[in-house]
């Protein structure tokens, strides 16, 4: 839970600027940007994500380091499961993180 997941901001929701789509090693999910409102990230920025909320902005190199740390800790699978669990929409998936429909 204390390990943070690095992701790249792909798109900020035009209706709700506190929601963004991030890419975490190819998986795209929505995260909440509300905790970065003092220094909001823009598309292309890298962030560390804790439990679905972007918590800090980091450099691309640090994002790569963080992903490597997760891999070395054997946490990649748990991290990706977590990322898949941040549902884009509730209809897309059941709460256990498994997608119902493609």
């Amino acid at each position, binding site marked *: *839970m*204390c*390990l*943070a997941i690095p992701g790249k901001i792909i798109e900020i929701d035009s209706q709700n600027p506190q929601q963004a789509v991030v890419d975490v090693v190819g998986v795209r999910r929505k995260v*909440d940007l*509300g*905790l*970065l*409102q*003092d220094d909001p990230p823009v598309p292309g920025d890298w962030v*560390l994500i*804790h*439990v*679905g*909320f972007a*918590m*800090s902005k*980091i*450099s691309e190199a*640090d994002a790569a*380091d963080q992903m*490597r*740390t997760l*891999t*070395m*800790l*054997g*946490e*990649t699978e*748990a991290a990706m*499961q*977590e*990322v898949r*669990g*941040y*549902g884009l929409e*509730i*209809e897309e998936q059941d*709460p*256990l*993180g498994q997608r119902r429909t493609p």
Partner: protein
Amino acid sequence: MKFVDEFRAPELIAKAGEEIRKLADPNRHYRIMEVCGGHTHAIYRFGLKDLLPANVELIHGPGCPVCVLPMGRIDDGLSLAAQPDFIFAAFGDMMRVPGTHGSPLEYKARGMDVRIVYSPADALKLARANPEKHVMFFAIGFETTAPSTALTLVRAKMEGLQNFSVFCNHVTIIPAIRAILDSPDMRLDGFVGPGHVSTVIGCRPYDWIAKDEGKPVVVSGFEPLDILQSIVMLLRQLRKGEAKVENQYKRVVPWEGNRAALRAMAEVFELRPYFEWRGLGFISQSALKIRAGYAEWDSEQRFTVPGLRVTDPKAAQCGEVLKGVLKPAQCKLFGRECTPEQPVGALMVSSEGSCAAYYNYEHRKPISIANAATN
């Protein structure tokens, strides 16, 4: 030292190891506490102990949220969830933590609606999608996760979502460190400070440890090199007879923390007068409760909570391990009655728990760093 080649920047790792041996006074025994469970996990996984001289001892701290949660709180949460049309939502880490009558997962097997969520925002979505049911998010964690719960409550209130509440077990790290320093059977020389908690609270809250207690603190990242560098920085201070707060994890941790996150916490939470911690007992002002302005979304204010106090199974020595008085393998149940598959105590459940880390990397399958690096 044979595994060192597999690290990133192996020459730096080797250099840090040498530096530690140079700095450590052979006539002195150093006891350094890594506060954060993420660091504990990394230390075991990377076998960092093997790179340290015998007189530099790492003591595992209380920074594992599921480990410090007393069983009574789990029982309380599960007892609320027995109501009809009720969904109990919690992080995956919580699911196998034993309550008196079973873990959340075992309650699920008995028919209770228990869901794993990965974010408090997902619990909010569950509530929107299930308007006929009440969704209770069983919140745990230090300052790393508390701001996310806070912001979720702000959003729930703004939306006027009626069927959502939070059973708040959020705790704060500073009072736990104070309790450990006040404990008469504990002698520590310095602290490897938590990385991601400090992203939120910054480095200032540790000032008193240096100024009043005379112990150095180095806020650290999670890579092997980060942790070793932090130990070097601690030993340098100890050698010079200094005690200050330093930030090894500058690339992520701002000295002032994350003000937006602190504001969200202050909006939603206030300090509880006291809270029970497994192993550390009742600690004053060590946990967060939901403010009156958010009472409607506070499970404890909305429902009747039994307020159970449950002592841990007698034979289990989770408390002593949590305080750093015993090593995991010194507990009578370790590796026999208590394993990650059949945990008796919470420290065996979470990957951040020192018992699980010790069991997985030292006891069951001694893993070389070579394997870890190529995974």
